[in-house]
């Protein structure tokens, strides 16, 4: 797929190599795709395909790669105001209440207390946490903490929301329901979103397009257009069309996942022999 000029985000020929004790390791090779303004794009691949590396590259946390990441046509180098990141790991600040967590980016931007709290309260309501403004993360469930992190990212008003398996640590039912919430937010804000996930169901439930990646080195294997009606919610998972997309993607992904499994078993055997 050639990166489109009118895209909100373009990943163009990104290659990333790491030096390891066993030699050079190519994590990503010539990865290219584009995300259109307002689009929800999911990127899926087996463990070890470099999804998180790509997340860090796009978010500006990892440098030293070949190729370009462009936002609105301009190459970026380091963290960019237009990109908001939601991390896989629990990332709320334990010493801040929900309100202060969400207001964090506004606080560091120098916004006054009254205004930032007003804006933070609106976002807390948007993610369905009103009533929990003064709770600390330790007093919230895992799903609530991830919604706090999402609201905090949205507070910075990023044009592109970049998420790395934000619901990976949650149970399946909570993931489905939070997926609904995410869709509502994405549609309400017309938010350009790039979701990195290893869950086929999550990708099909949420995305307009799904990019399937190969096992190491990570490359774009295929792009699926998900032509399911919007607005969508988790009821879609019971439809025949949903099952059809899941089966198609799994067909592509199975071969890659098998390679990953074979390699990890080979490593385990080698390690066992030593």
């Amino acid at each position, binding site marked *: 797929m050639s990166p489109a000029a009118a895209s909100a985000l373009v990943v163009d020929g990104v290659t990333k190599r790491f030096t390891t004790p066993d030699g050079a390791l190519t994590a990503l090779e010539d990865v290219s795709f584009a995300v259109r303004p307002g689009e929800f794009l999911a990127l899926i691949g087996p463990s070890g395909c470099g999804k998180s590396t790509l997340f860090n590259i796009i*978010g500006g946390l990892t440098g030293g790669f070949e190729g370009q990441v462009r936002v609105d046509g301009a190459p970026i180098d380091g*963290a960019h105001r237009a990109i908001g990141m939601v*991390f896989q*790991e629990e990332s709320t*600040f334990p010493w801040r209440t929900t309100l202060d967590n969400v207001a964090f*980016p506004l606080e560091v931007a120098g916004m006054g207390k009254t205004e930032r709290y007003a804006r933070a309260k609106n976002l807390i309501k948007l993610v369905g946490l009103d009533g929990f403004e003064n709770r*600390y993360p330790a007093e919230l469930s895992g799903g609530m903490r991830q919604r706090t992190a999402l609201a905090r990212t949205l507070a910075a008003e990023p044009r592109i929301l970049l998420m790395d398996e934000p619901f990976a640590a949650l149970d399946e039912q909570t993931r489905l329901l939070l997926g609904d919430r995410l869709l509502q937010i994405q549609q309400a804000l017309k938010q350009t979103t790039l979701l990195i996930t290893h869950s086929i169901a999550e990708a099909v439930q949420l995305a307009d397009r799904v990019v399937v990646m190969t096992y190491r080195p990570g490359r774009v294997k295929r792009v699926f257009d998900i032509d399911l009606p919007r607005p969508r919610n988790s009821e879609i998972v019971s439809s025949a069309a949903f099952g059809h997309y899941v089966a198609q993607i799994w067909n592509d992904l199975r071969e890659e996942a098998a390679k990953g499994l074979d390699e990890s078993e080979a490593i385990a055997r080698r390690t066992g022999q030593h």
Partner: protein
Amino acid sequence: MDGARASARFGPLLAGLTAVAVCLGAWQAIAALGLVSNLIAPPPSAIAASFPALIAEEGLFPRFAQTFAEAFIAAGLAVVVGTPFGWWLHAKRWAGRAYESWVATFAAAPLVLLYPLFLVILGRNAGTIIAMSFLTAMPAVVLKTKEGLDGIRPVLVNVGRSFGLGESQLFWKILLPASVPTICNGVRLGLIYALISVVGIEFLINFGGLGELIDDLAQRWETAMMYGAISFVVLTSMCFFYLTEKLERWIRPG
């Protein structure tokens, strides 16, 4: 508050106080039965009864003020020097690898044995007490500061970076609050070590506050008052510990 929650909240406290009460009761009984000489181990009731004389005749409170002023200065210096030093060991990996084990070794060394050297250099005065107590307290502050900063989850730093925070903002908004619990532990340990060191050196060089008082009472075989003074040091240490814990919760809630 229902019974189960009250039990969960106050049970450990009650169990701890009961253990202390049982020990004191046993000590009282042993003393009353004459199994141990009252001159060596006076009963707790006699120790408690000695407090009015300790306060009125032995100047317990002025001596307390002197000891704690010295301990606070020593611990304060340990925090002022030890926190940046701990940060440096964290920030510069080579420095951490080079010096952390030396600081840990320093923490384990019986520095109190160097008191003759300090007496020669600084003289028999509060300067010697503060200098030695500062050296005793500092390693705990250094090591705990480094431990606290090393233990910060990388994702919290990445959140800051994703919002474009500079190094200074990262430190004040994320690194410092994230490591406060461990740093506070170091400060608390430093304060307690400083207090122990101050009392010990006052005792050894027979100069100053509570340490000198304890030595003086021991020389006079005023054992009830001597134990009273020791109990006072222990109780104030416990109060320190409690207050610094409260302070930590105030500085970093959640």
